[in-house]
């Protein structure tokens, strides 16, 4: 759907993006992650053609993007707002027309959205009369009204209460099922795990990591397993022998739980073969790292690179 090739963006002496390339596959939800100030917003602004890269290019469906393509994009910025003195309906119509929708069509679609989200009563209200959450809903509707092929959401859940956040989440999933490609920039790693199919991680102007969420989590797996058993710790440790390292052992009411990191040349089958004669195994589960841990690990590892190079 969208490909960024060797994007470089400098602001004076500061390099906001340093040779960033990534591909957003069509039809999924793509997570753009990174600490504050990493360059996510700079990248999004280049994709939305708000600014131009110093070098590199953005391809949309394989061809270089043109000015007309902004109509295919829906963008909900992190710093977002509405004209406070303008009426909700009028403002939504205005924003839709700026996106290129004819007025009648925009009105028809808005009516449908407002009914679905039970916002019809707000039509003639001024934005300043709405609560923050209500204004966010208007904003979200304005972003997706022109049915963009690529929807870019920067921290879409901030400012919503849990009920409305769920509403937005459902809407994102619905849009994906209808074929919209969604690019999601967020610090909420829970929603990344839940929603995203692919991610890219940007840290200090560079892309550090990208790929399918499943693959990345597996890639960061530390070959650690949780083994539930009914046996004592000594018997377990003895049986384990050199096939793995016992990291932690907790005794529970029903089962005891051991966290085992496999030895270099070992597999989980080897470990189990060792354990089975000694203890009764009730469950085995591999520990796959949370995105939260992946994020912290990747950013810290990236930070360590320059230090290594100086040695």
């Amino acid at each position: 759907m969208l490909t960024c090739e060797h994007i470089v963006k400098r602001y004076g002496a500061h390099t906001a993006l340093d040779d960033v390339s990534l591909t957003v596959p069509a039809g999924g939800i793509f997570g753009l992650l990174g600490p504050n100030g990493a360059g996510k917003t700079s990248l999004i602004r280049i994709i939305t053609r708000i600014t131009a890269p110093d070098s590199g290019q953005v391809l949309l469906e394989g061809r270089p993007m043109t000015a007309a393509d902004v109509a295919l994009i829906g963008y909900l910025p992190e710093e977002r707002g509405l004209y406070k003195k303008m009426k909700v309906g009028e403002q939504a119509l205005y924003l839709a027309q700026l996106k290129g929708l004819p007025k009648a069509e925009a009105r028809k679609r808005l009516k449908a959205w407002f009914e679905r989200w039970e916002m019809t009563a707000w039509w003639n209200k001024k934005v300043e009369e709405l609560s923050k959450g209500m204004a966010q809903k208007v904003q979200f509707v304005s972003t997706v009204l022109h049915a963009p092929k690529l929807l870019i959401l920067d921290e879409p859940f901030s400012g919503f209460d849990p009920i409305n956040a769920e509403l937005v989440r459902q809407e994102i999933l619905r849009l994906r099922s209808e074929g919209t490609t969604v690019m999601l920039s967020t610090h909420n790693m829970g929603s990344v795990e839940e929603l995203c199919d692919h991610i890219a991680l940007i840290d200090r102007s560079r892309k550090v990591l990208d790929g399918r969420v499943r693959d990345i989590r597996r890639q960061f797996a530390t070959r650690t397993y949780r083994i539930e058993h009914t046996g004592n710790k000594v018997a377990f440790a003895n049986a384990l022998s050199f096939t793995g390292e016992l990291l932690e052992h907790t005794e529970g009411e029903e089962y005891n739980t051991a966290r085992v990191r496999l030895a270099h040349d070992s597999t989980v089958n080897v470990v189990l073969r060792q354990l089975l004669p000694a203890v009764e195994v009730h469950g085995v589960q591999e520990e796959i790292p949370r995105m939260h841990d992946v994020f912290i690990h990747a950013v810290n590892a990236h930070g360590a690179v320059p230090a290594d190079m100086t040695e």
Partner: protein
Amino acid sequence: MNKILLIIRREFITRVRKPSFLIMTILGPLLIAGTMVGLVYLGMQESDEHLVLVVDEPHVVTGKLRDTDKVRFFYAYDDLSDSAFKASPYTLMVNVNEAILETNTIQLFYKDLPSLNVQRTVQSELERTLEREKLRVNQVDPDTYARIKTALNVQLFDIDKAGEESYEQVLAAVGFGFGYIMFFFVFLYAVQVMRGVLEEKSNRIVEVLISSVKPFQLMMGKIIGIALVGLAQFTIWIALTATLMTAGTALLMKDRLDPREVLAEQQMTGELQAELMKEAGAQAPDRNKVMEVVSRLNIPFVLGMFVFYFLAGYLLYSSLFAAVGSAVDSETDTQQFMFPVTLPMIVAIFIAQMAITNPGSPLVFWGSIIPFTSPVVMMVRVAMGSVLETPWQLVLSMALLVGTFVFTTWLAGRIYRTGILMYGKKVSWREMGRWLFYKG
């Protein structure tokens, strides 16, 4: 292009729909006219009748000063002490001493400072009486004196315009008036542009907008939209003023006839008559002069030039103001950038003021050519009509102005597109300079 029209429409409609626009547009001229009429009226009103005690020791003026409905004269021959004057019902006290005919000086004491009108009445009565006394002492026939007394009426002629009396200075003053209005409006609307930009920035709507339109479109849409608001306001004002003036003149003409009739009735003595004749003679050309000035004013040309210089000057300054608005986070931060941007226009007002007395000076010439001051200064020359003798200067001034606003809008556009996305940063001139070279 379609998008910029949408932006212009929104800017125009949201502003025109505001109650403040209606109030400004319709009540504005009424308020201004009302205030002026009110001031004139108040100035003419005398709160109380003044009782003037004339201490006339040498008996020079006793019984010869004429009362008016506001000023009544009483006479005494001994000096009143300060406390006695304070306790007395008299509001003014005049001391006429022995040497009055030589020194031509009197002392006027007051409890509350009398209005200029009253001062003038007292003064002219005393002058008239003393003059007559001097005529008597010097044995001069009043009729002879009336013939001798000379009030010179200087008429100015431009040698290039044979036989036409020159009104350059009056026209220059009228031009200054236009220049001043120009200054006022360019700023009024340019500041609105700045406010609008700031509003969009502090509302955080700007990033939503520029994902649909180019920053330059957004800026130009706003500038043009507000310019249209200004033009709409002008049109209504001109229509209203024309109506009010027609109505007002009709009323005034009726009023004007009355005092002359009254004066004619009051003619009594020979010398007074002569004086009145002179006054009437001086007054009549005055009124003709107003007509003359109006007729000399090439109104379509002046209005046309006014609209051109307003639009071009406004485009120049509003783009700079838009840049300022984009670079800061709140209106309080605008001060440091406002001053340098405002300065040229203030200088322009000074030059224009100078142009009234010395329209031919090089300063005025350069002021009317240099784009930052030309909208104000050129109005003086336009009103005088003298600029038409050197059309190349007008064309040069206009071309330079257009060229400059194209340049400043380009410049402002580059600052604007970076500025609107910067939050929470104290911006310096250097920083703004750097933005010019960011790749858009």
